[in-house]
């Protein structure tokens, strides 16, 4: 199996997508870890999956529905109890830019 080389651009992109900022040391570690993970996943290529439907669920269950009936009451107290900051009954977060 070929070695996966994770370059700086890939790490940069993952940092943006995951909203993380890594130290130089952490970047090196992440490169090594990701490379190892990809090599591990590569083992699946040893199997012949021709004509096999990709599986997204472990159980053979489909069509689990609810009826359209309101069952929940005012959940604001519970929801807001998780807010690090709140104002006027709402979560308060750093300003989002919409220019």
């Amino acid at each position, binding site marked *: 199996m070929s070695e996966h080389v994770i370059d700086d651009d890939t790490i940069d992109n993952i940092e943006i997508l995951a909203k993380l900022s890594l130290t130089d040391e952490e970047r090196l570690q992440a490169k090594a870890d990701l490379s190892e993970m990809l090599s591990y996943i590569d083992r699946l290529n040893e199997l012949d999956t021709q004509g096999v439907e990709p599986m997204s669920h472990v159980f053979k269950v489909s069509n689990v529905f609810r009826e359209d009936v309101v069952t929940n009451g005012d959940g*604001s107290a519970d929801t807001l109890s998780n807010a690090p900051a709140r104002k006027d009954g709402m*979560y308060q977060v750093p300003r989002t830019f919409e220019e």
Partner: protein
Amino acid sequence: MPYEQYETVIGLETHVELATKTKLFCGCSTEFGGKPNSHTCPVCTGMPGSLPVLNRQALKYAIAVGLATHCEITRHSKFDRKNYFYPDNPQNYQISQLYLPICRNGWVEISTPSGKKKIGIHEIHMEEDAGKLIHDEWTDSSLVDYNRSGVPLIEIVSEPDMRSGEEVTAYLEKLRLILSYLGASDCKLEEGSMRADVNISVRPAGSSLFGTRCEMKNINSFKAIERCIRGEAERQIERIEEDKKEVVQETRRWDDNKESSKAMRSKEDAKDYRYFPDPDLVPIDVSDELLAEIKEEQPEFQEEKAVRYKEEYGLPDGDIRVLTSDKRLAEIFEETAKLSGLPKKASNWLIVETQQLMKEKNEEPKDLHFSPEHLAVLIKMADENKVSSGAARQIFNAVYENDCDPEAYAKEKGLLIVHDEGALRAAAEKAIDSNPKAAADYRAGKEKAIGALVGFVMKELHGKADPGQAGQLLAGLLKN
């Protein structure tokens, strides 16, 4: 190349809020305008360990819209997670459908002054709405209300088949009509229950290649859509013709006040959503039974109604257009026509007086609450000359307002025409005695002179006489 030799190519992504009572995956209410965060629970705020369960009615609405737009229904469908971080999205992913959207490959037909045209529907998928962000000036922070988070949406993705703002407006009107006939959405563009992102590119007219497109966001009204399309097409052509540059594929935010757009920051717009199947939601297998149930419930749509109205009632096209523009109005019409047996008169009341009162009161067909029974009774009263046309309008105002019984109301207000021969004769005799000149003129052959006498009788009986009957009686008396 001159500007006129370019054509604009437009495709729409239309988000429509479904009219379910509860959210897509939990039993929280979708009612608009509740106290902030009062319609929330662990599922729609993405708490770890919570388990979403699909609202069957939302699925039915999505399939119903697909059938009405001639789509193929995907019999084995799934939900996927679209991953991104933004405070309006508490799960850090939106549950949507990328790989197996519920409906595909459909079309709708639009009419514009240049004729009829089919607009392709690429797909329709189900997804969740996001929370609402409010900017707090005082603290310069953003406040989040998750009441909309998890409200069911469908996204209707058109093919790039439109060429003008006019076609786009016709397409959206068509979708609005289909959705409201189905009761699948209340479709208010201005209130956000119907929103469209517009993809625009330009190319030399007649070319079969596509230019690079820009996605325009933040368009809140039909008028804004037309302005945005014109503005963006001009910007792209100018860039090509004057700056000799290529159009860059980007998302742009339309500012309708400034009538111009600005590119959104590319970092926010990182189009790497790392979709993957949602492991919490099991697949959907649309059974023959479910499909049959939905087909059974499909209403008669506008085009079918229009054809039938022409055949069954022989109404003019203008009447048909107004009556079928809204399902509720069409239903009131059909019931009133049936009960009164006078379809053209039923149509007149609905397209003249009703429209006028709706306009005055700033109401819509869904606000109408008078019963077809009462309108039918009024139509018959007017037709049988029991009330004058002026009185009929007065009675209708009361029916429109309170759905009162027109007969009882006419009696109470003394609006019934006097068919009592004795009273009419007495009034006619008085008219002749009091207007000797008019009587003499009529006798001398001036037939028009009878008008004054009829007017006197009407006044004498407070407008409650039948003018035709009064005229006949007067003529008889004057001959003697």
